[in-house]
């Protein structure tokens, strides 16, 4: 299974829906809530997100080498083979 990483904000409903979708399907993923980071860790997190998503918006979901920006249910399911 491809590595799955979600960059999110704890206040963002679309990020919450993405987490819910992943949880409901038992997907194993890492999640980084960037709004909870500070200082050096935040700068690093922003740099990381920017690498995958130049506009640094949320949610940014990385599935292997595929990047999905925004809560796009069909695209996410397809990329996960669900």
């Amino acid at each position: 299974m491809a590595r799955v990483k979600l960059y999110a904000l704890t206040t963002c409903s679309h990020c919450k829906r993405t987490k819910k979708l992943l949880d409901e399907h038992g997907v194993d993923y890492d999640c980084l809530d960037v709004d909870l980071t500070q200082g050096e860790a935040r700068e690093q997190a922003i740099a990381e997100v920017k690498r995958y998503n130049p506009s640094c918006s949320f949610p940014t979901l990385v599935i292997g080498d595929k990047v999905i920006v925004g809560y796009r249910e069909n695209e996410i399911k397809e990329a996960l083979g669900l």
Partner: protein
Amino acid sequence: MTPEKLYQALKKSQEPKGYFFNRDRELVMDLLQALLTNKQRYGYMACPCRLASGDRKQDADIICPCVYREADVAEYGSCYCGLYVSREWNQGEIPHQYVPERRPLERLLG
């Protein structure tokens, strides 16, 4: 202030301007709660779906209602986070599309 009170207050001031709350009540209440959370955290209602800096001046463009709402609702019928929509959007007369981030990256990086 509760999300419900915020809902009533904003509904009165925003609807006459043509901005309606999303018919998805659960989403709206979630976003209004998030605005109150951000008000507590930063002292201003930073957009729940954008990374706030904590610096009010730097985030002036994303204090809800954000400066991008007008163009986003005009183009997509919905603001970036889906809190405010057009009448047509709510009535399903236009497609519900993903609204891409309009905010320039430079504003985020400060």
